[in-house]
């Protein structure tokens, strides 16, 4: 499946990624290649097979409502910058 330039630019915009012209061209090539695998899958005859997103056969896998995680002093992630426990990010402003 061929991915056109606009599709790459749209996905980049939705993912909040700034791509250079070269990046767009490279992604166009790479994404197209990846989707070729889907074309291979599409060759399988699925007539009469119900669509599913699951294969385990499990249903209603739920957990009881109890607090089991302790309060943590430090974030288990490498945030580039923190402030009083909060993660610092580039300014985003509502409204």
């Amino acid at each position, binding site marked *: 499946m061929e991915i056109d330039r606009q599709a790459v630019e*749209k996905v980049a*915009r*939705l*993912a*909040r990624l700034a791509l250079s012209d070269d990046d767009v061209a490279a992604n166009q090539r790479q994404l197209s290649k990846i989707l070729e695998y889907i074309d291979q899958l599409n060759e399988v005859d699925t007539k009469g097979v119900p669509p599913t*997103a*699951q294969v*385990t056969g*499990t*249903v*209603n*896998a*739920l*957990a*009881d*409502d*109890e*607090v*089991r*995680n302790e*309060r*943590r*002093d430090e*974030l*288990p*992630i490498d945030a580039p*910058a923190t*402030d*009083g*426990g*909060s*993660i*610092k*990010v*580039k*300014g*985003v*402003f*509502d*409204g």
Partner: protein
Amino acid sequence: MSGASRYEAVIGLEIHVQLRTKSKMFCRCDNQADGAKPNELTCPVCLGLPGALPVPNRTAVEWAIKAALALGCAIPDESKFDRKQYFYPDLPKGYQISQYDQPFGGPGTFEFDMVEDGKTVTKQIGITRLHLEEDAGKLTHPKGADYSLVDLNRAGTPLAEIVTEPDLRSPAEAKRFLQELRRLMRYLGISDADMEKGHLRADANISLRKPGEKKLGTKTELKNLNSFRFVERGLAAEIERQTELLDAGKSVDQETRGFDEDGNRTVSQRGKEEAHDYRYFPEPDIPPLEPKALGIKKLVKGLPELPVEVKRRFITEYGLQPDQAELLTDSLDDVEYFEASLKAAMSGKNKINDRTKAAQNISKIAYGIGRQIMTKKMLNSFMELDWPGSYPSVTGVGARYLASGEYTMSTLNPVMERIWEEDLDPEKTLEKEKPQKLGQSDLDKIIDQAIADNPKPAADFKAGNENAKQVIVGAVMKATKGAANAREVAQLVEKKLS
């Protein structure tokens, strides 16, 4: 303005209700984020770290189904979770686990009563769907800074999203719907539903059309109406804006808008929406759900008497006015309190035999004296007074003494307040503090004195100024410390002066 009559407003709401489970939606982090330090209540699941496995909270799922049942929704045989992709700093995974095409609640109807033009009208609002999802984190923007701060304590908190049909026709009706919905959530015990704390968040869709027109006009979406006042004022401002556009022959653009409180107008937030292209797909990490296998019968049995029914019962059975019933049924605790008080009022040696009378007196005490104490203690709700178990009987005993005529509201007030604050025995205290019963001759004397003390109002009344007698009545009430009956005093004063 007059716009309301030229056009009919068509309003639908989307409400997020924060569920008060102990742990989060898909991990076992503490869900009570009040007072926690930023990011203290997080784990690999709610931080969206690779390899973490989300497991839905059984209680949250049961509560969502409970809410759906209370809203008259059909419960599907199969349900599932989906990923909704979008990128924002408060969403660590890059997607939100939500429900797309198989929500827990199918179409339903929510019924409530409201007073319009002095008449009680029953409203039936269609519910499109109810689904379960997780909340995002909290972003704050320090003043003057060029950065924002992310706190993920709230990321993963369970939310029930309720979407209505465009069945609401005015800002007042929309506000009322929300208030009734809040009451329902509290009755069900699944949310604190405090709008100020963000437990209940509303967005609205609104369009206008000519009365009688079937086709819907172009709608706008009004975001973040986070208080009842905002809902009413924001919608009114948007109706006015759309009315002006249509009157001028212009068209309404379909867009997202926000309410600017200071300017009392709505403003476009077009930059924010981009294309809403969420690319939903089934959440591969969570097996599907079969709600009916979760014990629906038990959930149905566990449903409380719904607020609309309780209120109707308070009006028909106890003879209360709609506004009294409204206050007395604010929460299930209130209902229980009222009914225990009623029982206390209708038993004992000076019991009240007339149920309506007993109900009226309890209403007077609960929302006259009780409210006064609440205000003094800066409390929001009657129940926050933290009553010991015996307290409904205090109100009931008070109601009895009010009914027997031994106390008036003004003489009862200070004694009840003391009983409540010092935890005294109500019966003994009310008996001991009983005001001196005023004999007719005592009252006569006091009234004569009051007239003598107020010659000008007395003369004014004689000259035809009806209101002037209030000064004298006031003086008598003061002299008797409220023990006299104001209406009786007014009649006596009138008789003496004419």
